[in-house]
């Protein structure tokens, strides 16, 4: 039996679960970018474009749209890979049901990550269509921002799921959201270039996966790709890889004792 078929089986469960909430989900996937782009890209953008001096003369809408796309992926991931993972271990215990069958710990991990991937792909696609409709995509390369956004999301879901399988209570999730995700959302180059941050904070921002994701998405939609984008890509891939290795360890310690 190939590993892939075993991974697809938990995915089937999560998809069945998703079928019960997809309507609300799709609506908010469309509404959220429209609202953000109207308020920031169009509304705030009018003021910014009057005085600001964004690199290469791009408009604020063009600047902020790909950033929001990446940042949204991070936010979705931080919800999806925290409570639901702990719940599948502790409250609803679906992981335990899976592990009483031929499925192995790695199938449970990869199956859940595959579901995150699906969620991210759906959101990223909708987001891309919306920002394109706003006229904020300058280059055909921009379409690659979709898979990159998925990758940004996975750079969060993998390590967060690892953490959620380790932690005993949900208390830390609120702290992570408040002290990690939210600051990253605000200060990783989504809304303004990190070069305007004080030097120490700018250096700190280099290490955030979101900054790499935002920059990569922006380079793609603006059509300004360069060799440094490969580094951004590698950095995100490394987060996914390390996250999965950690998850393998924490899931096993929690579920196979």
């Amino acid at each position: 039996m190939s590993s892939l078929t075993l991974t697809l089986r938990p995915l089937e469960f999560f998809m069945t679960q998703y079928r019960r909430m997809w309507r609300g989900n799709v609506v908010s996937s469309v509404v959220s970018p429209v609202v953000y782009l109207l308020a920031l890209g169009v509304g705030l953008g009018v003021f910014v474009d009057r005085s600001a001096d964004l690199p290469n003369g791009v408009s604020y809408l063009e600047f902020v749209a790909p950033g929001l796309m990446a940042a949204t992926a991070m936010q979705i991931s931080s919800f999806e890979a925290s409570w639901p993972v702990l719940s599948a271990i502790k409250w609803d215990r679906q992981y335990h049901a899976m592990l009483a069958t031929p499925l192995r710990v790695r199938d449970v991990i990869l199956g859940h990550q595959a579901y995150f991937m699906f969620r991210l792909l759906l959101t990223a696609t909708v987001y891309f269509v919306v920002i394109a409709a706003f006229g904020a995509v300058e280059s055909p390369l921009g379409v690659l921002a979709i898979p990159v956004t998925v990758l940004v999301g996975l750079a969060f879901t993998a390590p967060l799921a690892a953490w959620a399988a380790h932690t005993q209570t949900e208390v830390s999730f609120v702290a992570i959201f408040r002290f990690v995700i939210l600051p990253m959302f605000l200060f990783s180059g989504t809304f303004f270039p990190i070069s305007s941050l004080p030097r120490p904070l700018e250096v700190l921002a280099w290490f955030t996966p979101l900054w790499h994701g935002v920059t990569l998405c922006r380079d793609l939609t603006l059509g300004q790709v360069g060799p440094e984008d490969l580094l951004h890509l590698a950095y995100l891939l490394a987060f996914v890889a390390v996250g999965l290795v950690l998850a393998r360890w924490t899931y096993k310690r929690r579920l196979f004792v």
Partner: protein
Amino acid sequence: MTAHNGQPLIHARDLVKRFGEFVAVDGIDFDLQRGEAFGFLGPNGAGKTSTMRMIGCVSPVTEGTLRVLGMDPARDGSKIRGRLGVVPQQDTLDMELTVRENIVIYGRYFGLPRKQLYPRADELLEFVELTERANDKVEPLSGGMKRRLTIARSLVNDPEVLLLDEPTTGLDPQARHVVWDRLYRLKRQGVTLLLTTHYMDEAEQLCDRLVVMDHGKIVAEGSPRDLIERYATREVVELRFDDGSRPEDLGYWTEGLVERVEPLPDRVLLYTDDGDAASHGIHERGLVPESILVRRSTLEDVFLHLTGRSLIE
């Protein structure tokens, strides 16, 4: 290698499970034959669940030998689990999905085709009398219904052995009887059952053979009847006394009338083959307890004799 006729379905020798310093299972031996209903009887913390989890291949063996269906859980866990049915102590049903979806999705974990799973789910739901609830969500079901659904779900892959960890703990008496009835039917259909319980009536009703576990060790093994014959008398006289009226020197009052006296905090048990004669004799000697009850010995008495403690504390 798979199990052949005559070879035990489950074989354990010197099986040990440790969590750090704590020894949960302390070197147990047992064999389970095809078609048997075999039980682990013991109080909470005796090591029953740890043993079940090792057999279910979701917990690594610390030491000793364990073979399930002729295979080694350390190597073939996934393959073994594909041929087991598991009813865990704590339900793992998905509350948001419907009753039928829970069975179908679970069947998909075994790789069974959907087309086959829908009729199979209906068949299983009929068996556990949940047909009318097939399209309802699981969440509002009663505890007994959830248990029955878990049992139905565990049968989806036609398991060779059904593992039941405390199948009726937390259920009200009526719901327990419904579950027992279903399990009894499975047993008659030839399904091999392996269960843990701390209810002696459950063990008596369902098990052909059982082991009594205490502090991670097996302290006795046999059929319920064997064990009662070996470790208890045919009958028991239970004496209850008003506060302060309980005599200090029970030995004096019961001398020659009974085989053994077991003083418990709330009552005194007298073990004898003829309960009526014993209670009559005590009366004649002038001992008047608040109440006297003569009953048959049960596995509870066996456990009390073997460990000096009650099953449920």
